[in-house]
């Protein structure tokens, strides 16, 4: 598996913006509550958990946040590692994404910026970098 991601109807608007380097998250029209674009296992919320409205719309986010937690996953098959983190976006929702940083440089509360990578040449997926750091590849 090359890790490439294909779009579907529910994710099309998100990937269109991501291709331009912009992070979209969702916002409730009724009460203004912000929601993550996707949950950690890829599900999406279809109804505002605060006011129960189903009028959620894609809205630009700042694309910055602070690191909540992270893990370095070790793959036994090829002895590789990769890091996945959870960032608390400036708007409040948590976003789970790959981390492009030396794990030794990470700490809870670290300022992060959301960029995008295209694993396997597929759709652009969010990647977390330390503020001021350049993409490693």
């Amino acid at each position, binding site marked *: *598996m090359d*890790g*490439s*991601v*294909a*779009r*579907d*109807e*529910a*994710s099309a608007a*998100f990937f269109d913006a991501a291709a331009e380097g912009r992070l979209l998250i969702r916002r409730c029209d009724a009460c203004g509550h*912000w929601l*993550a*674009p*996707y*949950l*950690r*296992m*890829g*599900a*999406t919320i279809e109804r505002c*958990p605060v006011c129960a409205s189903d009028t959620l719309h894609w809205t630009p986010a700042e694309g910055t946040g602070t690191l*909540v*937690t*992270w*893990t*370095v*996953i*070790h793959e*036994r098959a090829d002895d590789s590692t*990769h890091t*996945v983190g*959870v960032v*608390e976006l400036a708007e*409040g*929702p*948590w976003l*789970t*994404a*790959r981390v492009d940083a030396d*794990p030794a440089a990470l*700490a*809870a*509360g670290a300022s992060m910026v959301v960029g995008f990578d295209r*694993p396997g040449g*597929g*759709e652009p*997926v*969010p990647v977390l970098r330390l503020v001021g750091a350049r993409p490693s590849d």
Partner: protein
Amino acid sequence: MTSGGVSGPGLSGSAAIAGLGITDIGKVYGRTSADFAADAVLRAVADAGLRLSDIDGLLTSNGMTGGGSFQLPETLGMRDLGLNVTLSAAGATASAAIQYAAMAVTSGMCDAVVYVHADAPLATPGMSSAAAYAGAYAGAPARPPQGFRGVARANGLSGANPLYALAARRHMERYGTTTEHLGAIAVAQRAWAVGSPLATMRTPITLADHQASRWIAEPLRLLDCCLVSNGGIAFVVTSAERARTLAQPPVYVWGWGQGHPGYSMERGCEFGLVSGAGMSGATAMKMAGISIADIDVCELYDCYTFTVLITLEDYGFCAKGEGGPFAASGALAPGGALPTNTGGGQLSGYYLWGVTPLSEAVIQARGQGGRRQAPSHDVVLVSGNGGVLDFHGTLILSGQPR
């Protein structure tokens, strides 16, 4: 926090676990989960000194491999059941099942209820845990998932290991918990497993062994993670009065509770810091009429060492954030002040979701622990934990009538 009307003090001790059936367990190949379930039910009924025709209620749960629930009455010839339900609260199912079984027998709905859990993810000798669980996932997608599920897959958060690692890392960052603290839990439970003939891993380990074990998902090492096991375990629940007439010492159900935090995964969320054990434990202890100081033995759901640590904190055995030093003090190990996971737990004993701690609790409350029997065992606390700290259930059990 109130326990609600149904678990009022009048029900404390009114039901009892009267039978326990444990099949061959661990690396046992060539049997289906349905077969393990049937075997476990027969063993539990015989253990109680009952006949299968005495059972009029059935509760079932499945691990990864499913099967059995619908076949069981047919397989065993169980007729005219007054209760037959499959439950699912992930790892918290077992503690919940005993609660509903107790309600069924105290309400007059049933006379004797069997609860059984079975699983058989290990297909062949030498199979890795990861392969066992990957193969056991029913309905695994044939093609890579699209859209955001594809993003999640690309992130590599498959299975529970990295998700619990995220929880443990957050706790470490907030409270200074260390991998050595987690290691103390693994070492203590292995020391208990040495004394259990049921345990899969019975060679003692040291903290150095823990620290030398390979990373799975940092900060979790191999020895922070549970085993994968085949087998089945069943329990007979009946009224306290009837239990006193049966073959085994009754294990009375003094109290029960559940707590499901509903993590928001946004600003203010306590994922990794606080579990549902606080709410669940308070409810159970209130029903039982006891405080934390009255608990002699803990049998805690231990899918990971970290699960034990956060559960101990939230029940109140130590202050929030002090679970690491508490474990490192030796309190949990043989000879310690709070014997915990006395059969080795899921880390070193056997991994059958919530029936791992529940089965050992019954053995301890009966005083049948042999070499691993905790010296004081009047009050035994059992926890269940499911999802990624999403579900929690608690039982307070005792060999003493209420």
